[in-house]
């Protein structure tokens, strides 16, 4: 059977064990891919409890579909795509009973907002049009400051406000360290589209951190 490039040996071994009914292999998968699945689920449904159910339903669907899995994509992107389907369906259902602010997110989805803030650049009559009007500051000791709980909360808040697909991409790519190819496969989007989503997502998280660090001078 032809394997996609994302399919590594470890996954091949796990797949064989799983099909043979090896519980330890299943536990290894649940623990290994669990964090990414949980984050992806959380970005579509309103509560941890529902996200957990979505993750559980995903694993049951994985077991059901195991014999049909052909290894065209890596096992984890296949599992992630199942989760995203479940989470979207579930998210739609939950959202019907939610306040309007939650609904608004869906309309954001396709908006082509510029990643950079327009007022930050000089206008056509400026000395150098298109160059910084308000250049960004250098962050002093960024890793130390961004490791604090307050900064972490800002990052999570910014991610939560992203349109769903941007959230999915940044979760897979930057939180879980997946490759661009894996993110494309799981989401069913082109490489270019993936990069556009990633760019918007990263730009908004950076902007949120910039605002936060401005308000929180170094201590």
């Amino acid at each position, binding site marked *: 059977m032809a394997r996609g490039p994302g399919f590594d040996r470890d996954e091949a071994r796990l797949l064989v064990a799983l099909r043979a009914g090896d519980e330890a292999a299943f536990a290894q998968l*649940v623990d290994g891919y*669990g964090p990414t699945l949980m984050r992806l689920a959380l970005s579509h449904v309103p509560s941890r409890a529902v996200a*957990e159910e979505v993750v*559980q339903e995903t694993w049951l669907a994985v077991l059901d579909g195991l014999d049909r899995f052909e290894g065209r994509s890596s096992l984890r992107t296949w599992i992630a795509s199942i989760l995203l389907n479940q989470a979207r369906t579930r998210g739609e259902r939950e959202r019907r009973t939610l306040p309007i602010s939650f609904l608004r997110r869906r309309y954001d989805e396709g908006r082509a907002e510029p990643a950079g803030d327009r007022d930050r650049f000089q206008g056509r009559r400026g000395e150098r049009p*298109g*160059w910084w009007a308000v250049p960004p500051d250098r962050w002093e000791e960024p*890793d130390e400051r961004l490791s604090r709980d307050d900064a972490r909360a800002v990052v999570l808040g910014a991610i939560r406000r992203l349109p769903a697909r941007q959230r999915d991409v940044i979760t897979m790519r930057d939180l879980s360290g997946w490759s661009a190819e894996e993110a494309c496969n799981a989401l069913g989007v082109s490489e270019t589209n993936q*990069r556009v989503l990633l*760019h918007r997502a990263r*730009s908004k998280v950076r902007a949120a951190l910039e605002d936060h660090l401005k308000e929180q001078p170094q201590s």
Partner: protein
Amino acid sequence: MSTRAGETITCREFVELVTDYLEGRLPESECERFEDHLALCPGCQAYVEQMRATLRALGRIPEESISPAAREELLHAFRTWKATR
């Protein structure tokens, strides 16, 4: 965003190319102009540093996991699945 050949890119264009650059997906000619701009613009140098620091911060976000009870339920479901195969 594409830029016209031979022209210096502006900061506004620069920030839209940052992800393509960091992902190694800028065509060679654009990559050169990107780096030329970077070399002479302190604002964009700070911007790229901020973006890199943001990516490191994203990579440090702690993992989420399902509860031990939910995990147990799953292992139980696996045994049931195995028994019916």
